């Protein structure tokens, strides 16, 4: 049973077909990368998995549960977390609060219990904070813990978004261009983190990435897309030497 399965997914905006009958499956525990030129439909596929876009055709399965018509907030409940290409953090809250929002799907208290702040809420709060501190330690965010996101540099925000996604304790993590806007050193850290996310937390990673060195260093399998079609699917080495991929995207 694959973790995530796309079954002939299509998406069209009016007359433009952004994704055209794409099928693939992400296996448990692998790092799966989508590559392709701008407009190939990578982020569209992400947005369909997180249910912001409704596929015009085809079906989506997560752990053999059909998610094609689920509302977005239930996707997180199932255990799919994501980051965004252009960072979507809660800008006026501290790093700690941002990560605590990430614990939302694990909340055990009801709203009226929160209003009264019953002892139960406090206990749940301890548990959430414990888990958040683990993520903070894992990603080295200690010194930013109490700072407001709006005052942080871009690279740190990128890590915060990853941290927030990890706080949801997902089974599948969708990373939309994890290295965009990062310098060489930060990208290097990202490579280690992505590998560790799999090996330490056992999380499956599906990502979109342009930086081919990063792709080659972390991916188990690579899917190349162009104009909403699948060009090639295989190990990084196979895809990098595929003629169609070289012609459409990589160049010589």
């Amino acid at each position: 049973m694959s973790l995530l399965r796309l079954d002939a997914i299509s998406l069209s905006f009016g007359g433009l077909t952004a994704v055209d009958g794409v099928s693939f499956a992400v296996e448990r525990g692998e790092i799966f990368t989508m590559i392709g030129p701008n407009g190939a439909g990578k982020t569209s596929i992400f947005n369909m998995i997180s249910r912001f876009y409704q596929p015009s055709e085809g079906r989506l399965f997560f752990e053999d549960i059909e998610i094609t018509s689920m509302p977005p907030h239930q996707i997180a409940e199932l255990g799919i977390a994501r980051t965004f290409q252009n960072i979507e953090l809660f800008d006026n809250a501290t790093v700690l609060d941002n990560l605590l929002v990430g614990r939302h799907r694990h909340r055990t208290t009801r709203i009226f219990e929160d209003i009264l702040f019953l002892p139960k809420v406090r206990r749940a709060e301890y548990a959430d904070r414990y888990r958040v501190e683990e993520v903070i330690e894992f990603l080295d965010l200690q010194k930013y813990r109490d700072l407001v996101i709006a005052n942080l540099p871009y690279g740190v925000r990128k890590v915060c978004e990853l941290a927030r996604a990890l706080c949801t304790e997902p089974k599948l993590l969708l990373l939309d261009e994890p290295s965009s806007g990062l310098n060489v050193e930060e990208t290097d850290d990202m490579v280690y983190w992505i590998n560790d996310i799999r090996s330490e937390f056992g999380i499956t990673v599906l990502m979109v990435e342009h930086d081919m060195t990063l792709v080659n260093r972390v991916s188990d399998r690579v899917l190349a897309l162009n104009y909403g079609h699948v060009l090639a699917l295989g190990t990084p080495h196979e895809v990098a030497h595929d003629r169609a991929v070289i012609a459409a995207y990589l160049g010589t």
Partner: protein
Amino acid sequence: MRPIFQTDYDQDIRLMRHRGYWWSYGTLLLLVLLAPFVVGSYLQSQIVFVFIYSIVGVGLLILAGFTGQTSLGHAAFLAIGAYTAGYMQRLGVPFLVYLPLSVILSGAVGALVGFPALRLSGIYLVIATIAFGFIIEEVAARWESVTNGNDGMRVKPIEFFGVTLGREGYGFYYLCLGLLMLVLLLALNILRSPTGRAFVAIRDSEIAARSIGVNLAVYKVVAFSISAAMTGLAGCLYAHKLSFISPEMFTLLLSLEFVIVILIGGIGSLHGAVLGSIFVVMVDPFLGYLKDDVPRTIGKLAQAFGAANAGAIQDTLSAIGGAAGLKGAIYGVIIILFIIFEPYGLYGRWLKIRLYFELFPLYKKATFRRQKTYLKSERNR
């Protein structure tokens, strides 16, 4: 500066972060407890209005400040609370029953308003809430069997276990203070819990909130409902404070006043609700001062210096001070100045002043300057 070492999670959770809080809030509480014995009856009455406005302010802050859903219809929730109190009292229902009833009823109507609001945002939501305000105003004017229509409705003083709490008495003052403290406590509880964080998440990025599992529909409706319930509570007190209610009291202008409360007080923190209320309630006495005392003083001065037209000067000045649109104009100017120079309101100003003294010779203006960022992506709205 007080270095704070983090040794356990409670340090972030508890309300009184350190001993300084106990000192400052203790002193403040002592002052408000003693105030009625020191200040005159006029000022005492103004302070009661500050309490009532603060309750509305806290309610509106939860909705507009923390969930990011602006409402220009809060006078309507106040009206629902006030009329529930008035009508129930007429039916002979005791205070301890109709107080919670006005809270529940306003909360329920708030939830109903929240549903259509799910599909609206920004300016469209503002327009929808204005429309809601007009509807309630119209209902209050037409539903004569309940509201007495435009003749208005008398509200008798509160009967509380055989004790009558007159609207000018100490009892009513402490009741309002107690309820304000309760509302503040509940609001703080919300803000330090997952619910409050979900609200803030919705305010800052709806798309990210959804991707993390926040059910927008539920939380927006809950925010509307909580906010309306608090306003309904204030409405019940408002009716008793004024002892007479009629539809033309709950107009758009009153809703606007509530928005001014949080805009001027500061939308980032609950302190803003109280500071803004002090400002809005004190504008009236200030205008009175502008109308009477200032022209009189200047007139006397002019006379002392032997100006021939001293009387004319005094008349002109009091005409300006008593001009019909002056209150609106002053509000307008002050709001514009706040938005340009102090978006975080009076509370933001207070934070800056405090930091200035904490860091005394080292304070830099740039500490609070927000960096310009160009990262916000286009939203999938």
